[in-house]
Every structure is written in structure tokens, then in C-alpha cells.
């Protein structure tokens, strides 16, 4: 078999694995409940953000700014839910013992774990798409989605705003990819979905606390890498959203490749490499004694 045939066969295996993952996950009540919760959070958030703005007489002024503001808040609440959902990705197969049936088919362990990661990324994109859609939908309802203007002076054209928003959301995938790799690592070591969820929640709280320790004790980890030095889940991690958040105030984004973004990429890459390598080794070496 030639190299290109092997590549084609492997690509086909990934497509099949991801497709079957989608079929089984989006029929699983835990996943549906998680996405339902995210949908609910976004809708409720939109209502609260709008009426909060009305109360203090400071408004987003545009549907676009409203969407950014909403996504920023939703991500804070949605990340833990998404993290827990991703934690069960591999554990679901071990818990149901379906791993035996998968690994006795022409599917290698490496293909299985990589396909789970691809599935995780798709689930992240779906989550962000839900938040964005609700943000833009409600933003349009409250303020409209036209050009951003001030005193009839056009600050930014709508096309420019959506282009920058798309770039920002692409960068936003980077911290989520790291979170997905941590979830996958937890999942790879778990034998039940319940265990994976509990360990995931413990890990989430642990990293939150770990992220608070340096600041609380006054330890300076270095201006450049704080708050990324620990894998916490504070909203400061989502740098691209903060950059986007400045746009409605009239600050244009001249360059996305800023030092803040670079710091985020470096730290997230290091964590990703560690978690992902451990996940692959764990799945490849594991004896499935079920």
C-alpha cells in the first residue's frame, strides 16, 4: 500500500470516527443538557446585560458591541460546562465498554484519541457559534447590526467589525484548545463518565485556586506571563475578547499579533503539548481490562 493510500485510508477513518462521535454525543442527554444550559445562559445573559445597561444608562450602542460583551460573559460561564462535557469524551467509551468494540475494528489507538480531539474542537466551535448567534441576534434586536457610528460619524464599517470579530474568535480557539487537551487527558485516565466529570470539576476548581495563589500571596511571576502562569480559567485568559471589547470605544485593531496574544499562544502551547502528549501515551499504553 502506497503512502498516499495510507493517508487516504487514515483520513477516512478520522471522518468516520468524528461522524460517529457526533451521532452518539448529540443524542446523549448529558451533552444535550450541557448545550441547553449554554443556550439558556446566553439568552438569560442577553436579557440581563441589556437591562443592566439600561439601568446605568450606559449602552453598548451597537448590536456588535452588545454581542462581544455578551460572549465575554457567556464564555466565563460556558467554559466550565464545556470542560465537563469534553471530559466525558473518551470516558464514555470506557464506561460503556464500547472501547472494546471500537478497538477491535480497523481503528488505531492514535486515530481514536486524535479523532476525540477533533470532536472536542468541533464541540467548542458549536459552543462559540451558539454564543455568537445569540449575541448577534439579541444585539440586532436591541440595537441593530449596522455600522458603528458616533454622532452620525462612522467609526467602523459593519464589514470591518465582522471581519475583526471573526479573527478574534479564531484566536479565541487557542485557549479553548488547551482546555480541550486537559479535558481529554482527564478523560483518557477515567474509567467512568461519572468519574471523569468529578475529576474534571476538581481539576477546574484546583486550577482556579492555583491561579489565585500568586496574586493572593503577592508572588510576582513576572508581568508578562501572569495570569497565564497557571492554567486557571479566569476571563483574563480570553485575551482576544478583550481586544475586541475595545473596538466599540473607537480603538481600531491595527495588529492582532500583539505581545498579549503571543503570551497567550506560548503558554497555551506549552500546556497543550504536555496534556496532549500525556493523553496519547496514556491511551496507547493502557490495557483495556474491562
Amino acid at each position: 500500500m502506497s503512502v498516499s493510500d495510507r493517508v487516504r485510508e487514515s483520513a477516512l477513518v478520522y471522518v468516520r470516527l468524528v461522524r460517529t462521535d457526533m451521532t452518539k454525543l448529540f443524542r446523549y442527554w448529558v451533552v444535550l443538557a450541557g448545550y441547553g444550559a449554554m443556550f439558556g445562559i446566553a439568552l438569560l445573559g442577553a436579557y440581563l446585560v441589556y437591562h443592566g445597561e439600561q439601568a446605568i444608562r450606559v449602552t453598548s450602542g451597537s448590536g456588535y458591541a452588545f454581542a462581544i460583551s455578551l460572549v465575554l460573559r457567556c464564555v466565563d460561564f460556558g467554559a466550565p460546562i464545556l470542560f465537563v462535557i469534553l471530559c466525558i469524551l473518551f470516558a464514555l467509551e470506557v464506561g460503556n465498554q464500547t472501547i472494546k468494540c471500537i478497538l477491535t475494528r480497523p481503528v488505531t489507538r492514535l486515530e481514536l484519541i486524535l479523532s476525540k480531539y477533533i470532536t472536542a474542537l468541533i464541540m467548542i466551535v458549536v459552543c462559540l457559534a451558539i454564543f455568537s448567534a445569540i449575541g448577534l441576534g439579541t444585539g440586532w434586536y436591541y440595537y441593530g447590526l449596522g455600522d458603528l457610528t458616533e454622532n452620525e460619524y462612522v467609526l467602523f464599517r459593519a464589514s470591518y467589525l465582522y471581519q475583526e470579530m471573526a479573527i478574534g474568535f479564531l484566536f479565541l480557539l487557542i485557549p479553548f484548545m488547551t482546555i480541550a487537551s486537559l479535558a481529554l487527558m482527564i478523560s483518557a485516565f477515567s474509567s467512568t463518565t461519572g468519574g471523569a466529570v468529578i475529576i474534571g470539576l476538581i481539576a477546574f476548581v484546583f486550577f482556579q485556586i492555583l491561579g489565585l495563589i500568586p496574586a493572593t500571596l503577592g508572588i510576582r511571576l513576572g508581568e508578562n506571563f501572569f495570569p497565564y502562569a497557571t492554567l486557571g480559567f479566569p476571563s483574563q485568559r480570553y485575551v482576544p475578547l478583550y481586544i475586541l471589547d475595545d473596538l466599540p470605544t473607537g480603538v481600531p485593531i491595527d495588529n492582532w499579533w500583539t505581545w498579549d496574544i503571543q503570551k497567550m499562544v506560548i503558554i497555551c502551547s506549552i500546556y497543550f503539548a504536555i496534556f496532549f502528549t500525556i493523553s496519547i501515551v496514556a491511551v496507547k499504553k493502557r490495557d483495556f481490562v474491562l
Partner: protein
Amino acid sequence: MTGEVVLETQGLAKRFGDLQAVQDLNLQIRQGDVYGFLGPNGAGKTTSIRMILGLISPSAGATRIFGHDIRRQFRQAIRQVGAMVEGPAFYPYLTGRQNLKIYGRLSGGVSDSRIQEVLEMVGLGRWGEAKVKGYSQGMRQRLGIAQALLHGPKLLILDEPTNGLDPQGMREIRGLIRRVSQQEGTTIFLSSHLLGEMEMVCNWIGVMHQGVTLVQGKVDELLGHAADMASIHVDQTDRAKTLLKEKFGIEPQLIKPGWLEFPLQDRDLFPVNRELVAAGLSVHSIAPRRRTLEEYFVNLTGESKDVR
């Protein structure tokens, strides 16, 4: 032994800490065989199957399926294999058909009509749209066999396939195994501790006990072609026992009330019958019979509560 070697293990061994679960397992299964892998619970059968399929790594030894090493050439080795290891495994919140669709997709080339065909083969034709969480143990077992048959494998590995089935279900699965073997030419490797079941479907057996393969060979060769036992159904077993000892030097065993058995040893049963009747005993039946697999097995491994 003329067929191509389909499955071969060489010195396969597995150690869990201090426990030597399997040692020096050497199997050679040829095309068309129905190989029964026997042993009491805890003998190491399932561990062996897991190693054969690459689910766990062996401490020593190698497995070749269709000439491909299971660890180095996994995809080529496993492509033509269908397996059910230690019970069926499914997504309980999906229907039987959806589960088979998922597994079929992973194997590739499994059509909807093939899914319906295997559902009907295992007697679940009307239950494909029901969720697996509502299935009985027997139905799950059948679905487990269906997923193993889905892609028309050339080697079928079934670990305790009749677990949880009622006698009618066992009979159906036995028929299915025979059909798959004879009509589709599939080589079948079965593990079980239900010796009666295995005797009825297998032409080869291997006996495993405490991680060691005690014996393997053709069923006919191991149990003998000819009858080597005699059984008598008589009304007064005590009198019959005394008579048989006095007249023929036979020491029969009481198998169950009214039934005696003794080794035949080329003995003619007509004089035995004549003596019993002449002594006024009512002989309901007297017949030679072949030793059962269970007797052969118990002889090899000793009595065990796990063997039925």
C-alpha cells in the same frame, strides 16, 4: 489440518503483578475450524482473547491473524475479525440499529440492508428501533453477536456468546454459529465454560486451566470416535450393582437415581442385559455412549463448581 492458518499465537503470556494470568499460550486455528476455548471461570480465557485482539499488551509472545502481527500490523490483522469480548457493549441511550450503524461505520462498507440482515440473523429483526437500555440481557447478547457479524468477518471471536441466554436462545445461537461456519466459511473461535454447548458446535477444542493450556486437539480425537461408556437405566440399582460386580467384575457408578454407568472396555452388552433380566430386574435401557466433553474436562482439571 489442511486449511490456511488464520490465527496463531506463539508463547503468549500475561502477568498482572504477582499473578501469572496466562502463560505460554500456543494456538493454531485453521480456516473453517470452530475452535472451542474451554476453561473454568478465571482460567485466563478472556485475558487471552484480549491479548489476541490487542486490547491488552502481552508480557511475552506474539499473535498473528491472517499472517499479520496484531501489534505491528494492527489494521491489516483486525480488518477481517469480528469480536465480542466479555459481554456486549453498547450506547444504552441509542437504539439497536443506531448502535450497529455506528459500529458499521467504523468497519466501513456496511449497508443499512446488511444491518437489517444481521438483526434478523440474531432474532432481533423487530427490535432494531428499541433503545438498548430497554433490552434484556439475552437481547444485548444477541446484539453483541450481531455487531461482531456486521462486516462479514472471516474470523469470528466470541467470548462466552451464550451468557444470559435461555435454552431456546442458546439453541438459536448454536444454530447461528453453525450456519455462519458452514455457509459463509467463517472460522470461529469461541470461549466458554458451558461444555455441553461447546461439544455440540466445535470441531477443535483447547482446554485452559489456571493460565495454562492443558490440551488441544480435534474433539473426535480427544473424546474418541467410539463409545467408551455404558449406561443402564434399571429399577433396583443396588441389586444391579452387586450383580454386575459378581458376574462381570464391573464396578458401576450411580449417576442419578435409577441410572448406572461403567467403562465399556470393548465389552458386549447383551450378556449384561441378559443377566440383569434373568435376575428379575426391570431394565428400561442399556446403551453404549461416548464420553462427554464435561467428563473429559473434569478428568483434566478436577471438579469445579464453575463447570457446567
